[in-house]
C-alpha cells in the first residue's frame, strides 16, 4: 500500500501454490516449444536459435563417432553434444525439452534455497515466480539455448553448499566451470564462505582488526579442511573432464571450449562498452594493453565484492556475475540469464520500494532498446551508426551501474543468528 512497502511482500498478496506455479510454467514452456515448431515451418524467420542447429549438427557428428568440433562455430563442451544425441535418435525436440527441464530444476532449487533461508512456502513461491513466469528464460530455453544447464549446475552447487555437502558441491562446481567458464570467479567467495574449522570463527562484529591481521587470517583460512576438500574435488573433476576430452578430441577441444572464450576479442557490435574501442584498436599495438586495462576494473571489483559479501554466497555470486557481465569485453543478451537466475535469491534481502524496482527494471530495458535501435540500423540498413552504438553501450553501462549501486545500498543482511538455525 505505502510506496515504501517492500516489493517482495506485494507479490505475497497473490494466492499461489508452488505446484500451480510450476505447472503453469511448464505448460507455458511446452506451448512455446510447439509454437516454435510451427513458426519454423511456416515463416521465413525461424523461432529456433541458430545455436540449437549447431548443437544438433554436433550431436549428429557424435552419433557418427566423429568430433563435434567438425561443426563450425561449435564452441561448447562435448558433453552438450553427447547429451543431445537423442536429438538424432528420437526427435529434434528432445534438446529443447531437456533445456526446459533444467529451467524447472533451477526454479525448484531456488525454491528449496529460499525455504532453507527461512521463508515461508508462499513467499518462496512468489519469488520463484520471478524466474518461472519470466518470459525471458521461457523464450531462451524454448528457443534452444543451453544456458539453463549452467544455471542449474550453479544453483546445485549453492544448494549443496547450503546443505553442507562440500564434496558433492565441488563436483557440481567442477562441471559448471567445465560447461561455462564464468563460474570460476565464484571460487573466492566460496572459499571465504565455507565454514571455517572449529575454534576459528571470526565474528563479524570484530571488525576493528588491522588489514594485515585480516590478510593473515585469510591465508590461514586457505588451509582449512573444507576449503582444501572443495578445491581438490573441484580441481579433480575439472581436470578429469578436460583430460578425458582432450584425449578424445585433441587440441580442437581445448581451443573451442576454453581458449576461444578466454581470448575472445569480438570486434562485432555487442552490448559491451568496449566494443568500439576494440574494433578501432584491433590491429594496433596498443590494443593488447587496452584489453588488459579493460580487465582491471573487473578484477578489482570482483575481489572487493568477494571480501565484502561472502557471508551471503548467493548475493555475492549474483554481484560477481553482474559485475563480470557488465564490465566484460563481450556482452550478449544470453549473458543476462547468468545473473538473472540468482536474482530470486537476492530479492528477499534487498529492501527496495517496489516503485523504485519497477523504475530500475524499465531503465534496464530502455538501455537495451536504446542499443538495439542503432544496431538494427547498422546491421539491417547498412548505415554507419557505430558512434551511436558506442554511446548506447556506455549508457547501458551507466544504467547497469546505477542498478547495482541501488541493489547494494538496499541490501540488508539478515542477522547471523537466524541463519545458523538452518545448519
Amino acid at each position: 500500500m505505502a510506496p515504501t512497502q517492500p516489493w517482495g511482500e506485494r507479490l505475497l498478496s497473490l494466492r499461489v501454490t508452488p505446484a500451480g506455479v510450476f505447472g503453469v510454467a511448464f505448460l507455458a514452456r511446452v506451448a512455446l516449444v510447439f509454437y516454435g515448431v510451427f513458426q519454423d515451418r511456416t515463416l521465413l524467420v525461424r523461432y529456433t536459435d541458430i545455436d540449437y542447429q549447431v548443437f544438433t549438427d554436433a550431436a549428429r557428428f557424435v552419433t557418427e563417432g566423429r568430433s563435434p568440433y567438425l561443426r563450425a562455430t561449435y564452441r561448447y563442451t562435448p558433453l552438450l553434444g553427447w547429451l543431445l544425441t537423442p536429438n538424432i535418435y528420437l526427435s529434434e525436440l528432445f534438446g529443447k525439452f531437456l533445456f526446459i527441464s533444467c529451467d524447472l530444476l533451477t526454479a525448484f532449487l531456488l525454491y528449496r534455497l529460499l525455504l532453507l533461508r527461512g521463508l515461508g512456502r508462499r513467499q518462496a513461491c512468489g519469488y520463484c515466480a520471478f524466474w518461472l513466469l519470466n518470459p525471458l528464460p521461457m523464450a531462451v530455453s524454448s528457443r534452444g539455448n543451453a544456458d539453463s544447464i549452467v544455471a542449474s549446475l550453479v544453483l546445485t552447487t549453492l544448494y549443496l553448499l547450503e546443505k553442507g555437502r562440500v564434496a558433492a558441491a565441488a563436483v557440481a562446481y567442477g562441471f559448471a566451470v567445465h560447461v561455462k567458464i564464468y563460474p570460476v570467479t565464484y571460487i573466492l567467495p566460496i572459499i571465504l564462505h565455507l565454514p571455517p574449522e572449529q575454534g576459528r570463527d571470526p565474528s563479524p562484529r570484530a571488525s576493528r582488526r588491522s588489514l594485515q591481521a585480516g590478510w593473515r587470517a585469510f591465508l590461514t583460512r586457505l588451509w582449512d579442511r573444507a576449503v582444501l576438500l572443495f578445491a581438490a574435488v573441484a580441481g579433480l573433476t575439472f581436470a578429469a573432464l578436460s583430460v578425458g576430452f582432450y584425449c578424445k578430441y585433441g587440441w580442437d577441444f581445448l581451443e573451442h571450449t576454453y581458449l576461444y572464450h578466454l581470448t575472445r576479442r569480438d570486434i562485432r557490435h555487442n552490448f559491451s562498452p568496449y566494443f568500439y574501442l576494440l574494433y578501432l584498436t584491433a590491429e594496433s599495438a596498443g590494443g593488447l594493453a587496452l584489453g588488459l586495462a579493460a580487465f582491471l576494473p573487473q578484477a578489482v571489483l570482483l575481489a572487493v565484492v568477494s571480501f565484502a559479501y561472502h557471508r551471503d554466497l548467493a548475493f555475492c555470486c549474483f554481484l560477481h556475475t553482474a559485475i563480470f557481465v557488465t564490465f566484460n569485453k563481450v556482452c550478449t543478451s544470453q549473458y543476462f540469464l547468468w545473473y538473472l537466475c540468482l536474482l530470486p535469491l537476492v530479492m528477499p534481502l534487498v529492501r527496495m520500494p517496489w516503485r523504485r524496482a519497477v523504475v530500475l527494471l524499465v531503465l534496464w530495458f530502455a538501455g537495451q532498446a536504446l542499443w538495439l535501435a542503432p544496431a538494427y540500423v547498422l546491421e539491417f540498413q547498412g548505415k554507419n551508426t557505430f558512434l551511436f552504438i558506442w554511446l548506447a553501450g556506455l549508457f547501458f553501462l551507466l544504467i547497469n551501474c546505477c542498478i547495482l549501486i541501488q541493489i547494494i545500498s538496499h541490501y540488508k543482511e539478515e542477522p547471523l543468528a537466524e541463519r545458523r538455525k538452518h545448519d
Partner: protein
Amino acid sequence: MDALSVSLRIQPTSAHSSPDLDVEAGRSWRCRKATVTVPQGDHGVNSPQGGPNPNTWAWRWRLTTRRACTLLRAPEAVPTETAPSTHGACASSRPAPDRDGKGRAARRRTQSRDGRLGRRRNFRGPGLWAVGGRRDRTRERTEASAGSSLRVSCRRAPRRRTLSGVLAAPAVVAVVRAVAWLLLLWEAAELACKSSAALAAAHTDAGIKASCSEIILRQEVLKHGFHRDLLMKVKFGESIEDLQTCRLLIKQYIPAGLFVDPYELASLQERNVTEAVMVSENFNIEAPNYLSKESEVLIYARQDSQCIDCFQAFLPVHYRYHRPHSKDGETFIVVNNPDLLMYCDQEFPILKCWAQSKVAAPCTLKSKDICQWNNMKYKSVYKNVTLQVPVGLTIHTTLVCSVTLLITILCSTLILVAVFKYGHFPL
C-alpha cells in the same frame, strides 16, 4: 505546322510599312501590323452550342494586335566588296520587297482558299522555282562577277528578301526535303549492306539457324545492411527449345569482404529455395575482412518461370567487418562477374557460339559425378557489383578510448565506494 500556317497567313492590311526598327545592333527588322484569318476547320472548333468557338475568336484577336516583324538580311552578312553598294542599291530597291511581298501574299491567298494540299502544291512550285531561280541568279553572278556591283546587289536583293525572315520559304523547305531524302536513302543503303553482311556471315556458318545472339547476365543485390541477397538472371538471346534439356551452373567468386554461410545454404536447399554449395573450405565465419580469403560458390541455376529461356540463381551473402578508415565511413566490396557453365545432355551446335573452355564440376548438387561443363562467354548488364560497407572511423579512436576508459573507471569507482560504504567487511 500550325506555327508555319499562322505566319503564312499574315497579310499586310495596309501598304504602309513602319520604319525599320533596329532591334539589335547590326540587324534591321521590318515590322507591320497584320491580321490573321483563321481558316475553317483548323482551330475553329465549334462550341457545343454551335457557332464559332469564342476561344478562337480571342486567339484571333490576340494575334491581330501583334506586330508581325520580319528580319531583313543583316548588312554584315553581305560580302564586303558589295557592302556599300548594297546599301545604296537596295535602298532604292525598297519597294521591291513590297512587290514581292504582295506577290507572296497573293500566292498565300490562293493557298488559303485551296486548303492544305493546294498550299503544298503551291509551295513546291514557287519553292523549287525559287531555288532554281536562285541558282540561275548565282550562275549569272559568277559569270558577271567582274560586272557592275549594282546589278549584283540588286539581283541578290530578291534572294535576300526570299531568304530573309520567314523560315517557311518554299526554297528552303525544298532543300530540306531533298536532304532528308538523301539521308533516308543513305540509311537504307547502310542497312542493306549490314543485313547482307549478316546474311553472308550466317550463311557461312553451316547448320546454324540464326545468328549468335548473346547471353546476358544481370546481377542484382537485394535487401540492405549486412545481409544481402545476390540475384543473378541469365537470359539467352533467342528462344531455343533445346535449352530445356540444359543445365546452367554459376560459379561465383566471393571476395574476402563477404562470406557465405554454408549451413544457411544447406537449410535453403532443404526448403527448395536455392541450390548452392561452397567449394572452398577452412573458412571462419566470424573473422574480419583482412583475416579472410576469397571463396567460391557453385549455384545450380533454375529455369525462370517468368521469362522464356531465362535462368535465375539466388545467393544470400553477409558482410564481414572491415578495417576502420581514417575519413570515409564506408568502404566498397567489388563482386566480380561469375563464370557461367552450361551442360547439355546432347551436343548442340549453338553451344559453339558461346563455349570458351571446359570446366569440371559436379553434375548436380547431391551427386558426386563430375561432368564437363562448358564455360560460356556472355555479356553483363553491369560491369560488376559494388557493395558499400560501413566501417569505423579511426579519427574517433582517441575520443572513444579516453571516454570509454573514463566512464568505466568512473563506474567501477562508484561501485567500489558503494561496496565499501554498505558492505560488511570482516576486517
